[in-house]
Each structure stands twice: as structure tokens, then as C-alpha cells.
């Protein structure tokens, strides 16, 4: 029996295009710096900072600020909670796409 309520259970923090892209990218590495995230996802600095803050407040990512020489450097990594949440979201999304016949 298809679970038509499944989309209502998607994690709203992750189920947003920019934040979803951030989580997907960070799931493939230990941590990535701001420059890399901005270049691959294509967001401007303000938008990326905003979404990283939301994910940090939700406990899904950890942000570390340091200096590369004289220049500030920000890097982000998924927390264990964030990895679990992202895996759950992917599983739910795959289930949803399967019974929608679009796999």
C-alpha cells in the first residue's frame, strides 16, 4: 500500500534545494570549506552563510572557523546526527519516487 503521507514526513530542514545540496555534498567528504561549497552549489556568499547557519542550528552540521595565513577560512562537516538525518531523507525520497513510478 503506497504511503501517500510520506512527503509530509520529509525533514523540512533538509527538504530545501540549497540545504539539500549542501548535505549531499558534505555526505561525500569529512569536511569542505566555504569556497568549495560556494563553487559547486553556485550560491552567493550571503545565501550560503544563511543556509549553513540553519543547518548548524539544527545540529546537522558543524562549522569550524580558522585562518589560512591572514585570510579567514570556514569549513563545514556533517555531524553524526546530520549523516543519519540525510540517510533517512534519501531513503524516504527513494521510497517516494519508487511508488510514484519514477525510479
Amino acid at each position, binding site marked *: 500500500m503506497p504511503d501517500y503521507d510520506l512527503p509530509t514526513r520529509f525533514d523540512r530542514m533538509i527538504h530545501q534545494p540549497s540545504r539539500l545540496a549542501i548535505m549531499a555534498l558534505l555526505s561525500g567528504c569529512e*569536511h569542505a570549506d566555504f*569556497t568549495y561549497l560556494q563553487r559547486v552549489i553556485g550560491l552567493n556568499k550571503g545565501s550560503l552563510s544563511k543556509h549553513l547557519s540553519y543547518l548548524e542550528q539544527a545540529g546537522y552540521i558543524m562549522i569550524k572557523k580558522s585562518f589560512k595565513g591572514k585570510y579567514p577560512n570556514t569549513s563545514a562537516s556533517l555531524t553524526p546526527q546530520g549523516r543519519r538525518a540525510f540517510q533517512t531523507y534519501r531513503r524516504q525520497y527513494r521510497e517516494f519516487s519508487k511508488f510514484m513510478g519514477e525510479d
Partner: protein
Amino acid sequence: MQAIRDLDELTRTARRREYEDGLVDLLNAAVFLVGGLLIASVYSTSSILWYLCMLVSHPNITVACLLLLVPVLAMSLLVSRGVIQRIRRNVFWAESGYVKPLQKIDWRLSVPALLIVTLSASIGFWGTLRGWLAPDSDLRFLVSGLGIATAVVYFGKGLLLKFSRYVAVGGIGAVLSIMILIVPFSISTSWVLLGVMWSVILLTSGSVGIRNTLRALNETDNA
């Protein structure tokens, strides 16, 4: 769905970053070359005679060198990895951003590779014991098995990460590793061939990676 396929591609993009610049391939090429030559020397009569002569004429230095061999090799590996990180931070990834790769073993690749080595060594051992195979075939099966296992890891990684360069490395490596089994080389020659063959393949792969990375850097500078 297109969305989930794009997500998978984003994850693969981050995972591929470690291998695209070719630096890891150069390090592995050096490991294969040094490892192959060192192990080959153990099976070579002339090398063993040389070791024995050194042990008799300069016992302290020879024993010290033998004892320090493994720690020095391990330190070299660690230092090389540090050099790679430095090159990435200061040159290759200075403009495009830094990614620290995932530090976890991919069991989907490691387990089949271990099984291949175990199986090939077992077939060689039992075949030689039973007289089905020529006397020193057991070790040639092990050498070939190591080469094939390495090929499986690269091929598998290429498929999982959609990285065509590694698919090619795995394919070529597998074919050449099987040749070590078919052609009746001596054990020492087999080890040398394994080391040299894989170091050439990985040097080529690494060079292609570095060329592509430098080309991309030039395009960014000129933009």
C-alpha cells in the same frame, strides 16, 4: 528521479575530488615500485648473496638498515601524504576550495579484493601441492592475485564514482596482472613486473590527473 540522481552526483563529486588531481596515484605508483623491487630482492639469489655479504662485512649497519626499513617506509608514506595535502591547500585547491576526503574503508571493494587474494593464493598453494601446477606457481598465483585485487579496487571505485580514468586503470591492470599468471616468469621477475607494471599504470593516471588539474588552474587564471 532526476533530483535523487543529482544528489548522488553531488556526493560523488565530493568523493571524486581526492582522486581527480592524480597525486594519490603518484604516491601509489611509488609504493608499488618500491614494494615490488624490495620483495623481488628477497626471491633473487644474487640479492640474498649480497645481503649475506653485507651482513658479514658490515653487520651493525646491515642489521640497523633492516630494522629501520619498515619504520622508514612508513614515515615516508606519512610524509608523502603530508606533502600531498600541502600541494592541494597551497596550489591545486587554493582557488577552488579544500575538501577533506572521507576516512573510511569501502567494504564493497575491500572484501572482494581480499577474497581474490585469498582465493588465488589458495589455488596456487593447493595446485602446487597436488602437482597440478608447476613447482613455483603458488607464489605466481599470489602475485597475480594481488595485481587483480588492485585492479578490482580501481575498477570498482571507477564505477562507483563514475570516474572513467579509474575504470581504465582497473581494466588495463587486470589484463596485465593475468599475464603474470599465464607467462611462466620466475618469482623474482613476477614481483618486479607487478611493481613496475602498476607503477607505470598509476604514473600515467597520475600524470593525466595533474595535467587536467593544471589546465583547469590555467583556465581559471586566464578567466
